[in-house]
């Protein structure tokens, strides 16, 4: 590219690999935060952090896992710093919960997104890493800095929570509970 100085072959290779994982980082960040603008900021900042730390990256290892860990750590520090909360659309969750229990229609992505944001943060992260991004339990545990058994447990609980929120029978139970409450 004419508008920038050509780096070393290693840098160019790193840059190319980094750019290929950006769409995955965006999906992970969007799932974590539930906010597209915040997610994109996170991805750009994480990409810059990865770039400045590129000498610590071992070529040929898992760029996706490495950058996901950077993004995750940056997300957590941003949350701590700004106490920024996700904008959970309570209305969307409410609409999801009152869906007809016998409804056989396709699952709407908005419902899925709302359910995801309703999960406890560590469970949301776990199911995004394993259920959506396709990492192994071992890789996900490494990214989230927790034992593999903890990761398995978080994923199982997240799956149970999502099933409870999104499966028809469980939705009916939720609605009954809400009505009773």
């Amino acid at each position: 590219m004419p508008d920038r100085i050509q780096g070393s072959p290693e840098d160019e290779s790193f840059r190319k690999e980094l750019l290929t994982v950006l769409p995955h980082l965006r999906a992970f960040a969007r799932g974590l935060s539930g906010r597209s603008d915040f997610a994109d900021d996170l991805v750009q900042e994480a990409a810059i952090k990865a770039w400045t730390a590129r000498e610590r990256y071992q070529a040929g290892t898992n760029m996706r896992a490495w950058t996901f860990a950077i993004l995750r750590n940056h997300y957590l520090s941003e949350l701590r710093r700004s106490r920024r909360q996700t904008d959970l659309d309570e209305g969307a969750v409410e609409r999801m919960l009152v869906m007809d229990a016998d409804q056989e229609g396709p699952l709407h992505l908005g419902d899925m997104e709302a359910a995801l944001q309703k999960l406890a943060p560590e469970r949301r992260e776990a199911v995004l890493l394993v259920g959506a991004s396709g990492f192994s339990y071992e890789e996900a545990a490494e990214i989230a800095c927790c034992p593999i058994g903890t990761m398995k447990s978080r994923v199982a609980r997240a799956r149970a929570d999502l099933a409870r929120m999104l499966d028809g029978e469980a939705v009916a139970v939720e609605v009954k509970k809400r009505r009773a409450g």
Partner: protein
Amino acid sequence: MPPDLRPANGTGEPGWAGGLRKLYNSVVDEPLPDSFKDLLKKLDDSDDA
């Protein structure tokens, strides 16, 4: 079989599991927004910091 293990549409997995991947992939498949066009420049600039 408990509801969370019930396969949907004969695919062998609950319906929401496919929905989760679909949600994730819908973002992966999006073109990068314009705000990312400057990222390469930012990467270069970060070397000067």
